[in-house]
């Protein structure tokens, strides 16, 4: 007897904190050809960081890899939405950190793993080292009826996508039906979440204008080190937790300094998420901790 993942979660009581999100303007059309599957989003691992906000900086990423590997049903793929490593001025050290990160996440059981840079990986050298180890910084792929687009808004140190990539994005979107299921993966928020803390993309409005005519678009991103959900028009934006330290809620304090590590609740505020793509165009998000649900 075999059971699918949803049945398993129901039987095992692993519901966790679930957000159901959907943006289908015309779900009966949008669901055509789509399939149900799930992927895992991890973000902002900052490999190489050292400091009081995470006294287990060397152990948190391996714990996250182990937590993903322990999922009862492995995801179709895993995506890291940037800041794989913590920045360094030293190009050799940058490559060393990226290589170490790659080696550690090579331990994931899921072998379909997607990456993109964060500003800590790519803003000091326009992602030169990143590309040596991980390839292109923006790309698209199709998976079981969903068109995924990775957008690079960090290789420009001013946090812009840039005209060239926006042109590529337009061409990529033009090739998609207006009711296609589209998921954008990126690092910074595409919308001006809190520009006072630079939680925005300089030319994000242009990307959103290109996406807006498409009926079924959902964005998953990182950068802000906390779960956050927002809607611009019909486009939903979901920020993921970090795997190094949490940051405060937008504008909740004068500075965007890391929240302190709490020895009584280690790893609080850290985690990753499952994204279950369902039909019609709906996503079920489940937030998981690195130390169990």
């Amino acid at each position: 007897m075999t059971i699918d993942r949803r049945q398993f979660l129901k039987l095992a009581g692993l519901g966790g904190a679930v957000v159901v999100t959907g943006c289908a303007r015309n779900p009966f059309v949008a669901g055509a050809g789509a399939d149900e599957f799930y992927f895992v989003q991890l973000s902002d691992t900052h490999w190489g960081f050292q400091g009081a906000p995470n006294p287990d900086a060397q152990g948190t990423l391996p714990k996250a890899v182990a937590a993903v590997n322990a999922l009862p049903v492995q995801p179709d793929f895993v995506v890291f939405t940037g800041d794989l490593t913590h920045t360094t001025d030293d190009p050799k050290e940058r490559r060393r950190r990226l290589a170490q990160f790659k080696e550690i996440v090579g331990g994931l059981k899921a072998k379909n793993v997607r990456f993109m840079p964060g500003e800590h990986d790519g803003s000091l050298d326009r992602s030169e080292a990143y590309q040596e180890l991980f390839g292109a910084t923006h790309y698209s792929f199709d998976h079981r009826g969903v068109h995924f687009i990775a957008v690079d808004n960090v290789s420009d140190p001013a946090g812009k996508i840039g005209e060239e990539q926006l042109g590529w994005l337009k061409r990529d979107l033009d090739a998609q039906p207006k009711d296609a299921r589209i998921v954008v993966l990126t690092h910074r928020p595409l919308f001006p979440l809190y520009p006072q803390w630079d939680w925005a993309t300089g030319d994000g409005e242009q990307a959103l204008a290109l996406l807006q005519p498409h009926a079924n678009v959902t964005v998953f991103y990182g950068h802000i080190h906390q779960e956050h959900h927002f809607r611009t028009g019909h486009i939903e934006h979901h920020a993921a937790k970090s795997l190094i330290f949490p940051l405060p809620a937008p504008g909740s304090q004068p500075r965007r300094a890391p929240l302190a590590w709490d020895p009584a609740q280690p790893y609080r505020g850290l985690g990753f998420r499952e994204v279950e793509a369902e039909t019609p165009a709906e996503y079920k998000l489940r937030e998981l901790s690195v130390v169990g649900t």
Partner: protein
Amino acid sequence: MRILARKFTYQPDEITLKAGEPVVLELTTADVHMGLKCVDLGLRADILPGQATRLRLVPPKPGEFPFFCDVFCGDDHELMSGLIRVVA
């Protein structure tokens, strides 16, 4: 009014201006490409090595207006910020 950007500070990091009194901020960097952005006053400038960037400003009203570096410049980039204090 001169402001020098240097990893990862502005010198000075607090300036006091008078509301309604025009001022020119002269921005320079001691090392790499930096930025200065003050969302509340609508200010934004690149600060490039080897040249001064001038920003004209007429502070509209008293208050405290934070600014920050919006060009990623290294490890403590996120902490690089300052404050424009406008008095009556």
